[in-house]
């Protein structure tokens, strides 16, 4: 089932920093027990992610990719195996692994500013003064171009704007790893493209380590350094890992007829729709 890593590109491979991996997912399995029924969702997932790397996990719905992200976030416990961040095992949620949720999860009773400020106050209560926390909150809102709406409540802004605030809240925690759980899944195509560009620009600027769940092939190829393709559940595992060797900054329009881009895209499509077709039951999403 596990195919060897197959680099698609024919150019020189990306230079990687030597040494131990930054984030290490080590033989992680996850089973859910309901009564006497035990269903294995994830089976022996192994993945190493370097600092500053942008990794996308792609797979059909129901393959357990969100489960994997929740395990890295610490929101779910592993059945066996471990997740290590800088050689320390993580088994509880924390601001060092901030999550951007698919449905933004902003607190509706707080303004845009207060949503970010809540995170800033909590994470930097000892380290920053009141004034610095205010400045840091505004800095992160400016980073996602949402400073103008700081006094609005989540219900008063559009879906794309909510997701921007969600990203600002996560970035404001200065996480070691940024976890994106289908962050653009609920957005229309134009808003989605706009937001993808913003995320690319932010990643370029901050060089943060990102783990992103997606089911959008173009999104995965455009944004990531590596694409992790998951087999279908039950007992899903990593089927293949694809290096996307495209220089940054990447421009959406220039990539349309780029050979590496087309090749990578074809590789993912082939994996998802030829070799690991979605079971008919799960096809109706």
């Amino acid at each position, binding site marked *: 089932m596990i195919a060897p890593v197959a680099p698609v590109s024919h150019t020189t491979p990306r230079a990687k920093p030597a040494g131990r991996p930054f984030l290490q997912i080590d033989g992680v399995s996850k089973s859910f027990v309901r009564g006497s029924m035990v269903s294995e969702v994830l089976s022996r997932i192994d993945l190493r992610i370097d600092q500053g790397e942008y990794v996308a996990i792609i797979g059909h719905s129901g393959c357990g990719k969100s489960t994997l992200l929740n395990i890295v976030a610490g929101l779910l416990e592993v059945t066996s195996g471990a997740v290590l961040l800088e050689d320390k095992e993580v088994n509880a949620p*924390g*601001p060092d692994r901030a999550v951007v949720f698919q449905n933004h999860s902003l607190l509706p009773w707080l303004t845009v500013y207060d949503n970010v400020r809540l995170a800033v106050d909590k994470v930097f209560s000892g380290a920053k003064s009141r004034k610095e926390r205010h400045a840091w909150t505004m800095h992160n809102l400016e980073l996602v171009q949402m400073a103008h709406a700081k006094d609005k409540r989540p219900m008063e802004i559009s879906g794309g704007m909510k997701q921007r605030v969600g990203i600002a809240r996560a970035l404001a925690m200065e996480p070691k790893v940024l976890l994106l759980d289908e962050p653009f899944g609920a957005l229309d195509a134009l808003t989605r493209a706009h937001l993808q560009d913003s995320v690319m620009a932010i990643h370029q600027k901050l060089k943060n380590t990102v783990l992103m769940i997606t089911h959008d092939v173009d999104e995965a190829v455009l944004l990531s350094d590596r694409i992790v393709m998951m087999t279908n559940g039950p007992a899903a595992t990593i089927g293949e890992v694809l290096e996307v060797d495209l220089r940054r900054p990447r421009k959406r329009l220039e990539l349309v007829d780029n050979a590496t881009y087309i090749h990578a895209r074809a590789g993912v499509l082939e994996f998802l729709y030829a070799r690991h077709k979605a079971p008919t039951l799960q096809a109706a999403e």
Partner: protein
Amino acid sequence: MTRSAATIARIETKENGAIHPASAAVVPFPDPTREPGRLLAMSREAGAIVVPPLIVLTLILLVWQIAASGPKATLPTPLRIWQDAKDLIVDPFFVIGPQDIGLGWRVLTSLQRVAIGFGLAAVVGVALGALVGQSLWAMRGLDPIFQVLRTVPPLAWLPISLAAFRDSAPSAIFVIFITAIWPVIINTAVGIRNIPQDYRNVARILRLNQAEYFWRIMVPAAAPYIFTGLRIGIGLSWLAIVAAEMLTGGVGIGFFIWDAWNSSRLSDIVVALVYIGVIGFVLDRLVALVGHFATRGVAAA
């Protein structure tokens, strides 16, 4: 009805306020073509809200008058009530003797009792509701007991509370408390059980402690439910006031009805019923209004 009237009043004061400072320099001419039209439309709108209930009320009074006019009628007619209880209707705040005071004073005394009983019920109810909503064990243990106790009518609590407190004042407050607390507990628990997993996840990632979680997530997220419970609770506690004040005597509106019945002043009872109805309506709207402001953003999300 009340809201539109208030809006009109606010607009008028605003216009007055704007004209005053301006009159020192330039006197703005009211637009002769548009101003009367707007006023007319506004008064028409207000009329559409006020007129129907007035007509229906008049009809009801008329039917009542005719029905209670017969020689064998047991209840007083509206005209008779007006003659008997004119002092009670016209002036709510007169003081003649220690037991001969306006209904306004009596209502205030009753409201004070309700405030204490309902206030306690709100605090204890939200706390117990939070416990039941948070802990599965507490829910399984307490919920069946709550479901049984909440069906006990206010009057049935009287003897047991008298036996327990051996004093009428705390017993009366206890009756209001025990009547109002159930909807607060049950709605709070439902609200807390319905907090979306996403908010809990946010709290976990931020590592909010128990107190932070309670104030920053739990209370605001469950606020719409809590206020539904409080609104039902204030209605019930006002319902329990007559039962509670049968015990305490003195000056409450509930005791006034009991006292009037014992001395066959039927007209006074009818007036007191109207007082209780109007105050109950105002209390309900008051809690709804506080809830509206307290849950801004959450209810519509």
